[in-house]
């Protein structure tokens, strides 16, 4: 039973990682940019949600603002920041992104305070044992939401014209353009979806911890990078598997390897081992 619970906890953590990492891999697949500032959008989702909820009490409204507000901001960041430097060597957008991320964290601290913001009446905190497994309401919801969102993304990408246009652009931008697909619109969509997912993750984590802090994006910022590389840069399926696998490895590692290596180091040892065996990541990416 304990092992099952640890496994489930791992999946839970993994699904949060997945929500963040998928957006990152979408951006990488299309534009070859390591979009570190993505983690800043994750934090923003947390802030939007807690601020809206604390003033309106509506979880629905918080969710909408978190998803769409952050999605739109993601597109704006693409326009203002990345569009002009796409043809530069890869470390240029990387450092620009890192600079942007640092600035965002500081902005959050200056605007919303260094102590962080909590929910005055935190939702979904009650315990909901199902089948002998002890998870809180918020945790069950997390798993559900992740399945819906990522499943929805998979459906979108494989069954709709929009998804087709997206996949075509990723595979061969010139060919796609010659078929009349507007690459700019695809990029906007890409950033919108990826950022919206990150914003949702931020909201979820804010609820689960009852704490939204300016620096809560620090860990996802580099962990998500590790995950998308593990999964095979650009492969959504790979990212998903890598995220879940990492969550489970961390879960067991925290308990049984805790005094050998800390959590972050476990993740990266895992990464390095995989990469030495399969340098392109677990799945073939783009």
């Amino acid at each position, binding site marked *: 039973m304990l092992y099952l619970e640890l496994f489930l906890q791992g999946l839970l953590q993994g699904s949060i990682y997945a929500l963040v990492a998928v957006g990152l891999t979408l951006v990488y697949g299309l534009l070859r940019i390591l979009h570190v500032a993505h983690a800043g959008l994750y934090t923003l989702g947390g802030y939007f949600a807690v601020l809206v909820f604390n003033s309106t009490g509506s979880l629905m409204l918080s969710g909408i603002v978190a998803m769409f507000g952050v999605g739109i901001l993601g597109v704006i960041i693409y326009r203002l920041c990345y569009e002009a430097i796409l043809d530069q*060597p890869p470390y240029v957008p990387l450092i620009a992104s890192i600079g942007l991320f640092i600035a965002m964290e500081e902005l959050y601290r200056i605007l919303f305070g260094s102590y962080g913001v909590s929910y005055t009446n935190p939702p979904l905190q009650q315990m909901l044992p199902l089948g002998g497994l002890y998870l809180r309401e918020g945790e069950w919801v997390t798993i559900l939401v992740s399945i819906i969102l990522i499943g929805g993304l998979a459906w979108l990408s494989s069954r709709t014209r929009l998804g087709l246009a997206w996949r075509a652009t990723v595979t061969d931008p010139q060919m796609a353009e010659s078929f009349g697909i507007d690459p700019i619109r695809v990029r906007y969509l890409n950033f919108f979806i990826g950022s919206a997912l990150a914003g949702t993750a931020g909201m979820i984590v804010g609820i689960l911890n009852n704490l939204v802090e300016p620096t809560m994006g620090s860990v996802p910022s580099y962990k998500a*990078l590790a995950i998308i590389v593990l999964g095979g840069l650009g492969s959504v399926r790979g990212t998903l598997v890598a995220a879940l696998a990492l969550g489970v490895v961390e879960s067991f590692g925290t308990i049984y390897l805790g005094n050998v290596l800390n959590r972050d180091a476990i993740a*990266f040892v895992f990464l390095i081992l995989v990469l030495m065996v399969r340098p392109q990541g677990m799945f073939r990416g783009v």
Partner: protein
Amino acid sequence: MGYEISLLTFMGISIIGSLSLNLITGFCGQVSLGHVAFVGIGAYTASILTKADTTFFVALLAGMLLAGTFGVMVGLASLRVRHDFLAITTMGVNFVFLGVVREQEWLGGELGISSIPDPGFGKLGFLALVLGCVILVALLSLQIRRSWMGYVFEAVSGDEDTARMLGLDVSRYKLIAFALGTALAGLSGGLYAHHVRFIFPDSFAFVESITLLAMVVIGGNGSILGVIVASALLSVLPQWFQFIGDYKLLLYGSLLFVVMRFSPGGLAGLAQNLFPKSKKSFVPKENQ
């Protein structure tokens, strides 16, 4: 004068650190996001040795050797993975280094190593030593750039596959770049440890690797002068900006962003644009 001396000493140590990364990332084009791990290896090695009564210079050298050795191992990784994959792998190296150091009590664990012995040169003497090292490293970089090695580095940085087709032993030179760059990072670490005389895992956190990379990139990837200027400025910026107080880091992040967004060639690129007729090539060919 103690204040100015300590600032200049930190500046010098930062310059050595960023010049060492410049060899790997700037000259040879291998992006390393975990460079400070090697600074750390040098720091810890030198400190443990001097606390065990080893002579300062021997300890420093030992730190460089050990850092360089680990550097070659990471360099081997660079033969398997490239570009973004390599960047993330090197980031991983940083975290694994931290993870190991945090858990090992003989390395100080979370408490780090305190009361590192004073090498005995006095503040001014130590500064002279650091500046001497800066000059040596800068000259070494210049010499490498002008040499055949520099040529191969530039070829690998530009287009690795073509370089291989031309018959260049790409693997060997990548390893050399890593060995040299990480050994010099170890030097920077040993000097740092004996200046502050206290080190702990947080001194070598991932954010410090980013800082080093930022110094290289803002200076102008590959440009020795640019990197020196950028490191000098960025390392003492927080002290100068004390009066800005609350907005210091915000400014730092925005600066990184603005420079990359509007002048990706860094300071060197900026200089190139302002003085196009200058004979000196500030920027390696690929950024023009």
